[in-house]
């Protein structure tokens, strides 16, 4: 628990928690990043599942680049939010399920991107890739559901 206590008591984490603007701004970045990464991942998954067919693989790669930016925004804003409440969420089951879903969702997006990159433009997608698309979509769905639940289950500060 030493590191988490230290993190939460750093001057920066204290500023984020107490400044009237910092926390709402963090929430804004986190919501925008969420919509960007999850929305684009769903569109990419839909493409792997065959809808819409005319969307080329080059466009798919462009989308994955923008989705990665969304993910980066959320990793940074998410860590900053975490730093203000680290000791209160670390044993929160909903938070841990959210993190697991992001890990699974992140790895399966990475696998999906890597596999699509190796395919010829007009080749069909193998079944394993389609299953990955379903797992990816479900994992990010679960991440949002459990992220919302954290707000209801987190221990109060005092």
């Amino acid at each position, binding site marked *: 628990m030493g590191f988490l206590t230290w993190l939460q008591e750093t001057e920066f984490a204290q500023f984020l928690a107490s400044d009237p603007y910092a926390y*709402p701004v963090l929430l804004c970045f986190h*919501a925008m990043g969420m919509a960007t990464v*999850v929305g684009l991942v769903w*569109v990419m998954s839909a493409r792997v599942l065959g809808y*819409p067919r005319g969307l080329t693989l080059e466009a798919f790669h462009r*989308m994955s680049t923008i989705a990665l930016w969304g993910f980066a925004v959320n990793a940074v804003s998410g860590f900053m939010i975490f730093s203000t409440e680290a000791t209160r969420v670390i044993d929160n089951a909903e938070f841990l399920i959210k993190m697991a879903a992001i890990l699974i969702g992140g790895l399966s997006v990475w696998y999906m991107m890597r596999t699509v990159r190796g395919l010829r433009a007009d080749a069909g997608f193998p079944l394993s890739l389609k299953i990955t698309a379903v797992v990816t979509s479900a994992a990010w769905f679960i991440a949002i559901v459990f*992220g*919302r639940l954290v707000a209801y289950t987190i221990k109060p500060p005092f």
Partner: protein
Amino acid sequence: MDDLLRWVRDTPLGHFMRETGNAFPVAEMSHFISLSLLMGVMLVVDLRILGVFKQASYSSVLKLIPLAIVGFAINLISGVCFIVTNPFLYFTNPAFYWKLTFILLGGLNALWFTFAEHRLISGLPTDARAPALARVMAAASLGMWTLVLLLGRLLPTFAPVAGG
């Protein structure tokens, strides 16, 4: 106005939202999931018109629009569920009025696109630039939906009454 808000609060849906334990969190999850779907599709459609996904045909990208409509519909339903839970919390909040304004503008923009631009853009060859007006409206669309999202996220911050 107060009478209207009281009536809204006392509708069967209002009672249901307040008296059913998980109704509000479930509405929130639905709202977050569908806003991600809506924003994801709008990003792809608007950025295509702005020339970012140059390799994808216009018509293929426009085929995603039904997904955005599904996302918007779920947002609308879950949003109404929030409001009927405690309409006074929303109609005393300046950020809520701004959010409604930008939803209206974004919706009008989408209608204009559907009736005035959709067929023309859908028929453009992949390497053609979209007309300047369509590009301006696509940029406006991205700006407006982003503001809707941010104002929504900031509703608790601007609530004059304490809110979650």
